[in-house]
C-alpha cells in the first residue's frame, strides 16, 4: 500500500506542478522542482523515510537510464546544425564545461563542502539524468546532483538571456548552445521561445555539455 501511495503520490505531485506551470510564466515554477518540494514536504509530514520512498518509486527511477540513452535522438535530429558548426560548438561546450567544473570544484574546496555537495556542484552543468548517473557511479548523492542541476537550469534560463543581450551575443546558435550546455531542458524551452534554430542548438548544447562533464569528472574524481 505504501509503495503504491508513493508511486501515485509522485505522479500526482508532478501533475499538480504541471498545472501550476501552465498558470504562470516564471521559470521558478519548474515542474520538477515544484514536484520535488511537494514530495519532500509529504515525506516530512508523514514521517516516511527517504529509503522506503526511494525503493517504492524505483520503477520511475529505473526509466532514467533509457531516457539518457534517448538523448541521442535530438543529437541525431540536429546533426546538420552540429556538422555545420561542429568544431566551434565542441570548443564552446568544452570551454564552458571545464570552466564550470573548475568553479564548482574550487568553490567547494574554498567553502570546505563535503564530497556529496562538491560533486553536485562540479557536475551541475550536466543535465540531471547525467549528473545523477555520475553520482551513482561514484557512490555520492544523486539527490544533491539532481537538485543542483535543476537549479543551474532555473538560474540560467532566468538570468542569462538579458546578460547575453547586453554583451552582444546575438547569434541564435551561440545563444542556444550556451543555454543548453548549462540550463538543459529548462534553457532549451526558453530558447525555443526565441527561435527554432536557437532551440535546436540548445538541444545540442545539452547533449555536448553533459558529455563533457561525464567524460571528465568520473576519471578525475578522487584521483
Amino acid at each position, binding site marked *: 500500500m505504501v509503495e503504491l501511495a508513493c508511486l501515485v503520490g*509522485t*505522479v500526482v505531485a508532478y501533475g499538480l506542478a504541471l498545472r501550476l506551470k501552465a498558470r504562470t510564466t516564471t521559470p521558478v515554477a519548474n*515542474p*520538477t522542482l515544484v*514536484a*520535488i518540494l511537494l514530495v*519532500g514536504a509529504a515525506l516530512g509530514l508523514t514521517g516516511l523515510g*527517504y529509503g522506503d520512498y*526511494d525503493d517504492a518509486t524505483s520503477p*520511475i*527511477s529505473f526509466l532514467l*537510464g*533509457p*531516457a539518457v*540513452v*534517448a*538523448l*541521442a*535522438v*535530438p543529437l541525431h535530429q540536429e*546533426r546538420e546544425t552540429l556538422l555545420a*558548426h561542429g*568544431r*566551434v560548438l565542441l*570548443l*564552446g561546450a568544452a*570551454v*564552458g564545461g571545464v*570552466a*564550470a567544473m573548475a*568553479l*564548482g570544484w574550487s568553490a567547494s574546496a574554498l567553502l570546505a563542502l563535503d564530497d556529496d555537495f562538491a560533486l553536485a*556542484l562540479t557536475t551541475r*552543468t550536466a543535465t540531471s539524468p*547525467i549528473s545523477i548517473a555520475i553520482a551513482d557511479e561514484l557512490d555520492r*548523492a*544523486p*539527490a*544533491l546532483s*539532481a*537538485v543542483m542541476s535543476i*537549479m*543551474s537550469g532555473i*538560474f*540560467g534560463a532566468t*538570468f*542569462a538571456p538579458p546578460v*547575453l543581450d547586453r*554583451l552582444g*551575443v*546575438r547569434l541564435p*546558435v551561440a545563444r542556444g548552445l*550556451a*543555454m543548453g*550546455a*548549462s*540550463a538543459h531542458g529548462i534553457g532549451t524551452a526558453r530558447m525555443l521561445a526565441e527561435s527554432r534554430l536557437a532551440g535546436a542548438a540548445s538541444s545540442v548544447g545539452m547533449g555536448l555539455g553533459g558529455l563533457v562533464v*561525464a567524460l571528465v569528472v*568520473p*576519471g578525475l574524481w578522487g584521483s
Partner: protein
Amino acid sequence: MRVARTLLGGLVLYAFLLLGGLVADVLGLPLPGSVLGMVLLWAALEAGVVRLAWIREGATTLLGLLGLLFVPAGAGFVQFVDAGWVWLGAVAVTGVGAVGTIVLTGLVVQRGMERG
C-alpha cells in the same frame, strides 16, 4: 500500433543502456553506462545501423516524461536539509556559475562563428 512502436523503441533504448554498461565494464571506462549508451546509439543512428523510425516513439515518450523521472532522485534532498548554511553557498555558486558559464560559452561560440 503506437503502443507497439513505443515498446519496440523502449527495448532498443534498454538494449543500448545494457550495451553501454557492458562496454564501460569491459574497457574499464569511468563513464555511466547510460551516457556511453547514448553515444553508442548516436553513432548507430548516424551509421544507419539503427533507424530513427524504430525508436522515435519510445524516445519521444520517455523524453516527454523526463521531468517526472528525476523527481524521486531529487526528493532525496530531504536527507540533506540539516546541512543549513551550506545550501546558501551551494545556491550562490550555482546561480553565479550558471550565468557565468552561459555567457562564456556564448561568447566563445559567437567569436568562433564570426571568424568562420
